[in-house]
């Protein structure tokens, strides 16, 4: 089987693999899909492009049988179909690979693949199925160990398992929801090769994304959605430009321009030397990380998910034991609990907003005082001054435009953007010397992303040192003063953001040095971790 990047698009005269006509789906307070048409030809990669909240996922969940449309028609291979459940969708040859994997961590690859099927009926002889799974993977050029347990696999490998699951069920159409969000550039290349192999074998692929470059690289045609409506239906990718697509997506020319005040670094606020820590599975997650961050500086940490970023953030914020040395403002910091970090002036915008950053069933007031309840004016001795807490909460709610019915509303009822505003309000209000922000814009809409970026830049201007961990390279390049690349618990290189090359960063993110000198741009005050 040869891999051809420029597989010719089959003539449109052939019956399309999937046709959606006039799809309408309403949720309380919002029309997620408003008369959407979409068609997928056999053997093509059709990108569905749009911002978060544009209605892409809703449309594809309808196709996957998870939601039922309020209006509209679904035709598969020319035949009208009603998809009431994922089962119906699978029976019709449609398979969805979700952004968040649905794999049982304690089970093997094969067990996950055959979960829920008819064969074997009763007795489980896994060996036979191991072979079958391995063969199927090989057909499409995917490497996977069928006996491996899911928790032992990298994110890229887990994605392969999801794809195999769908193929094993005989899917002719694969719907891939933001498949590259969790992958490194080199893993993305491998995925794209696999997708090409599949289209060559007559499979058709819907590729959901909001990343323009990728869409142009992989798609044959593009459909763009904005606020539940189609703004461009099936235009050929070959003739499109990033600027065109961006305009169709957003409706205005926004290549978000972040206002930067000049970079005027102060003294070193955070100094980290030879930091080592384990992850939750007791495996080494950080293996000797060293760097400095100065006042008024944003240090971006780039890396593919799972290379030690979460652990790094947890160590600095006191949530994870470590060995090595951390100094904040020259004070050695033992970091035995988050309490020490809070005392040391470290603010933390955690990765998990709903699980860690907020208490879902407590009020906005209670959530806003999580870091300040020990100090006056909210604390008076061991008593909490409820009036003071409420006054402070009202003020923060206004200052940071947190949209909530009242300060007594439970945090779980806030939207993602408003919850992040609440968290930022609380963290910034502690006037931190150092802020650690992990994936601060993940899953937020454009407006909220702009707010987050603006607030972070304002803290930088006010002289805080900021460590920004993100998987969005564009975001890192736009916000950071310097970017450090983390790979398997090591900092492989540090770049000046102003003249960093995205490809060099991408290469380091996968551990490759590929002729690049490991010595980065000379940057005084930055210690580099040596090779292991």
């Amino acid at each position: 089987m040869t891999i051809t990047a420029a597989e010719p698009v089959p003539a449109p005269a052939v019956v399309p693999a999937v046709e959606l006509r006039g799809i309408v789906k309403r949720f309380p307070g919002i029309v997620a899909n408003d008369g959407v048409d979409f068609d997928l030809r056999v053997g093509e990669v059709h990108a569905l492009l749009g911002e978060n909240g544009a209605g892409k996922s809703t449309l594809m969940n309808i196709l996957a049988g998870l939601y039922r449309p309020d209006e509209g028609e679904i035709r598969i291979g020319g035949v009208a179909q009603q998809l009431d459940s994922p089962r119906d969708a699978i029976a019709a040859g449609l398979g969805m690979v979700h952004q968040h994997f649905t794999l049982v961590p304690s089970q093997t690859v094969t067990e996950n693949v055959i979960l829920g099927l008819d064969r074997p009926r009763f007795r489980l002889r896994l060996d036979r199925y191991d072979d079958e799974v391995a063969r199927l993977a090989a057909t499409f050029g995917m490497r996977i160990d069928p006996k491996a347990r899911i928790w032992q696999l990298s994110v890229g490998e887990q994605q392969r398992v999801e794809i195999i699951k769908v193929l094993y069920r005989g899917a002719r159409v694969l719907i891939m929801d933001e498949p590259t969000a969790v992958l490194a550039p080199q893993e993305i290349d491998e995925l794209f090769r696999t997708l090409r192999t599949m289209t060559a074998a007559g499979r058709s692929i819907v590729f959901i994304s909001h990343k323009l470059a990728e869409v142009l690289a992989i798609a044959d045609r593009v459909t763009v959605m904005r606020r539940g409506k189609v703004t461009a239906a099936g235009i050929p990718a070959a003739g499109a430009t990033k600027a065109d697509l961006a305009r169709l997506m957003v409706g205005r020319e926004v290549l978000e321009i972040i206002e930067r005040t000049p970079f005027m670094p102060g003294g070193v606020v955070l100094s980290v030397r030879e930091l080592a820590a384990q992850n939750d599975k007791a495996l080494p997650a950080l293996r000797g990380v060293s760097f400095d961050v100065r006042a008024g500086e944003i240090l971006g940490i780039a890396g593919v998910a799972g290379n030690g970023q979460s652990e790094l953030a947890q160590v600095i914020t006191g949530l994870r034991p470590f060995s090595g040395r951390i100094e904040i403002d020259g004070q050695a910091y033992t970091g035995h609990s988050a309490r020490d970090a809070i005392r040391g002036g470290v603010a933390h915008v955690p990765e998990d907003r709903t699980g860690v950053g907020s208490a879902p069933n407590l009020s906005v007031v209670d959530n806003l005082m999580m870091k300040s309840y020990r100090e006056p004016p909210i604390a008076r001795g061991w008593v909490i001054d409820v009036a003071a807490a409420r006054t402070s909460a009202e003020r923060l709610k206004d200052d940071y435009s947190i949209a909530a019915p009242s300060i007594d509303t439970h945090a779980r009822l806030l939207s993602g953007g408003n919850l992040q505003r609440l968290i930022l309000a609380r963290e910034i209000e502690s006037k931190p010397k150092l802020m650690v922000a992990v994936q601060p814009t993940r899953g937020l809409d454009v407006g909220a992303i702009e707010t987050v970026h603006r607030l972070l830049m304002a803290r930088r201007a006010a002289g805080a040192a900021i460590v920004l961990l993100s998987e969005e390279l564009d975001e890192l390049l736009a916000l950071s003063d310097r970017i450090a690349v983390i790979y398997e618990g090591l900092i492989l290189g540090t770049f000046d953001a102003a003249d960093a090359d995205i490809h060099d960063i991408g290469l380091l993110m996968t551990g490759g040095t590929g002729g690049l000198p490991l010595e980065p741009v000379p940057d005084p005050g930055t210690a580099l971790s040596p090779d292991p």
Partner: protein
Amino acid sequence: MDPIIILSAGVAAGTIYLFAAIGEVFAERAGILNLGVEGMMLIGAVAGFATVVSTGNPWLGLAVAMLAGGLLSLLHAVMTIHFQADQVVSGLALTLVGVGLARVLGEGLSKAGGTSLLPTITLPGLSQVPVVGPVFFTDQSILAYVGYVLVPVAWLWIHRTRPGLDLRAIGEYPTAADAMGVNVYRLRYLYVFLGGILAGLAGATITLAIQPGWFGDLTVGGRGWIAVGLVIFARWDPIRVAIGAYLFAAITRFLLDVQGPRDFLGIPNPFFFNQNLTYLLGMLPYVLVILAVIAGSREATRKRIGAPAALGVPYIRGERGV
């Protein structure tokens, strides 16, 4: 103080814990913590006993006991699976209802005299094997033999069959199982029901085989809770459940026997001469359960084999996340 007698009695009494704990293993593997074991056992015990008192047929009693335990468990299933109630509280409520209902049904039963019991069996051949023969295969109730079969069957079911694969999946990550067409709700009902049936069987094992008679709440007397503790000790594994159950029962029996003789090798037995000390001795099985649970927890932490990941978490369709 014959060790063979103690071990043999341990196997007999251990069968009670065995059934209840394996039932709980199934329910918990499916992701549903059912703390109502004590209540379900009592219902099984009283239903079985009452049936035998009125019909004289122990086999019918056994069937009724299992059905009664299963039916009671459905109350917990509805609450936790459909209404997403807190599994801890619902389990406690189930115990309260079970205990109350058993008292109502058991009214007057304590005066019932001798009843016909399930047969005991001595296996020809196997009973001749030294130690193992007299301990496991001599004069044991037929239910003990059911236990010997149940343990490997339960293990094979969980690890070597398609339904076992589904069971492990719904307890670890129901969202994934549901996405693949496994009916999470139905299977959870099924396994909670199975847990109830086995708890009912455990109750009947008391009243129809091991300690016939009805003594109110004391008939079960905390054995249900001990079974729940054993599951943690056994780390949700049927074979470890069996080892724990037999061993625990044997130790309990040993503690009982210690009070018998006047002296040990000429040293006066303090428990014989000061009966009051038996209250302190009686604490030991409960202390033992605490120690077993500590051991189970420590090992689980060390080896990172924890409870089923979704244990105690209601599954809500259409919401993502573990």
